[in-house]
């Protein structure tokens, strides 16, 4: 007689709501396209798409709400009683809330764009929701099995999304490259997990930490393979070559989604693994992260300077940002981990905002992606030009924006821990980044408009996304000035959230 396991469904409430949302979207799409009449009225394709977006928004809002409630209560709920598998504590609640928010904004961003490019199939939202559910599993995982499942559930829908414009050869190529690199990385990661399991005889992070013998060669190879697998996912140099190709080829709404959320989820999960499972061998891992971080900052920033395609430029910029984030791992203190979480929060808004501008300029014929397409934008579209300038200076880390405060906390944590050399390189990298980010405002404000064909006006939802991102970028960057308290969002408040979440790592 086997006892039924004691499970607590509230631990997977956000994941469940998003998964159910995905199923609801798929069913709704089938029923609505079969019989186009609802309540006696004809439904056009745009109404169907809007319905699907509303369904996705509801699912993601429930997920974000449950995660925020979990964060407020401060409870730590494991899915299973003895070996939790998935745990909803403050750390995973923070990451889940952020991921669902970013996914929701991406959904809103896609509505008009998909119709423009004529790829408005309902699966899009279902795939987006499923991949979001995978990210939630990934960040909430407390054992290697759930980690691997979460990683695959996150990646597989994104391979499809990258190739969603399937008549477009560049979209095909993007999907193919992402798929090959992604599954190769999962292979390495999986073998790493197998070796760690072989040495310790357990899959649970806490138990692995207790059982990991120091200096065992098999364990070292395993941990190395695991780190390489993650390095592919977060696009750390030298495992970054896929990033620009995939970002460039994928439809720009998908690029917006994956550049933000995948990075969020992969870094949050890496924090969990590195601190939770390898906390006792962390000192030797820090040197590895130090090297990765140095290379990533240098290569990302230098390569970004020679790009002529905005998507590729943002791809190399995301590589560079991965480098800054890896500094937090090289530092390895509680303060640096909370700085990493704060950085992820800020990065989500500024990067999504920058891509949102591109999305709202893209037409059916082609994405707005060549850098010349933006020339003279300030004359034709002053509002969008101003917003893109705001996001560009935030990504460059100029004071008054979240890009600055995030870098400030991260660099300060590194200097406090004595990583002066790496911090100097990072500051130098930020200086280089100012050069290529400011090329965008220069083109928009100081050049004559080109012959580029851009979408004449942005949709309301796109403007909403842009407004929210811009508000977050400014409010989180006002430090040391406090914004009005009724807004509930300020630099110190967000840093406080990051700090309380990071405590749950240890």
């Amino acid at each position, binding site marked *: 007689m086997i006892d039924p396991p004691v499970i607590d469904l509230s631990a997977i409430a956000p994941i469940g709501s998003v998964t159910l949302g995905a199923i609801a979207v798929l069913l709704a799409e089938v029923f609505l396209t079969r019989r186009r009449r609802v309540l006696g009225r004809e439904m056009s394709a745009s109404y169907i798409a809007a319905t699907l977006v509303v369904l996705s928004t509801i699912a993601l809002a429930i997920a974000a709400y449950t995660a925020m409630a979990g964060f407020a209560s401060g409870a730590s709920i494991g899915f299973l009683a003895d070996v939790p598998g998935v745990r909803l504590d403050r750390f995973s609640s923070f990451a889940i809330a952020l991921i669902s928010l970013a996914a929701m904004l991406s959904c809103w961003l896609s509505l008009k764009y998909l119709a423009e490019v004529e790829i408005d199939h309902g699966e899009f939202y279902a795939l987006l929701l499923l991949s979001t559910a995978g990210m939630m599993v990934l960040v909430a995982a407390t054992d*290697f*099995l759930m980690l*691997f*499942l979460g990683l*695959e559930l996150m990646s*597989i829908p994104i*391979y*499809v999304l990258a*190739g969603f414009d*399937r*008549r477009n*050869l*560049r979209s*095909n*190529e*993007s*999907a*193919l*490259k992402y*798929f*090959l690199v992604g*599954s*190769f990385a*999962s*292979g*390495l990661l*999986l*073998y790493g*997990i*197998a*070796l760690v*399991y*072989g040495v310790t*005889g*357990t*899959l649970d992070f806490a138990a692995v930490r207790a059982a990991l013998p120091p200096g065992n060669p098999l364990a070292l190879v395993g941990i190395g393979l695991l780190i390489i697998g993650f390095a592919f996912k977060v696009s750390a140099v030298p495992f970054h070559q896929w990033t*620009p*190709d995939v970002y*460039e*080829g994928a439809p720009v709404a998908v690029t917006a989604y994956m550049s933000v959320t995948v990075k969020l989820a992969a870094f949050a999960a890496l924090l969990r693994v590195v601190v939770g499972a390898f906390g006792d061998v962390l000192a030797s891992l820090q040197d590895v992260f130090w090297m990765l971080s140095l290379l990533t900052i240098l290569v990302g920033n230098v390569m970004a300077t020679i790009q002529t395609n905005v998507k*590729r430029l943002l791809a190399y910029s995301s590589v560079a940002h991965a480098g800054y984030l890896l500094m937090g791992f090289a530092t390895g203190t509680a303060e640096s981990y909370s700085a990493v979480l704060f950085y992820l929060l800020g990065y989500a808004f500024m990067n999504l905002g920058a891509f949102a501008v591109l999305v709202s300029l893209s037409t059916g014929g082609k994405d707005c992606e060549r850098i010349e397409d933006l020339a003279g934008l300030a004359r034709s579209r002053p509002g969008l030009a101003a917003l893109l300038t705001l996001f560009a200076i935030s990504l460059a880390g100029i004071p008054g924006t979240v890009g600055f405060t995030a870098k400030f906390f991260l660099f300060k944590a590194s200097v406090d821990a004595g990583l002066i050399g790496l911090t100097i390189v990072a500051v130098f990298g930020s200086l280089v980044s100012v050069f290529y980010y400011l090329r965008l405002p220069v083109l928009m404000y100081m050049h004559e408009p080109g012959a580029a064909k851009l979408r004449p006006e942005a949709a309301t939802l796109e403007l909403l996304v842009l407004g929210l991102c811009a508000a977050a970028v400014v409010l989180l960057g006002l430090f040391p000035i406090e914004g009005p308290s009724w807004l509930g969002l300020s630099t110190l408040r967000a840093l406080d959230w990051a700090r309380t979440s990071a405590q749950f790592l240890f």
Partner: protein
Amino acid sequence: MVPLEHVIGLSGLLFVIGTIGALTRRNLIVILMSIELMLNAANLAFVGFARAWGQHDGHIFVLMVIVVAACEVAVGLGIVVALFRNRESVNVEDVSLLKW
């Protein structure tokens, strides 16, 4: 009873063959097969270790990996078919619109 060293040796060999295949071959289908070989090498290692430790975590992991690998192949072949429709080739060197 097969000793653990033999199981892990075979699994390591398969993994290396898979990795080299994935990195050096130019045919998409062969690359896919090489990646499958890497996953199955990990499966073999899991089974071997699970038996050595006398518990079932590794076995369960293998079942999950098999499911995931099936999903991955389904999506991967789908992508290859979509590419083949547009380009009539399964050679990775023909897939080079995006660079630098």
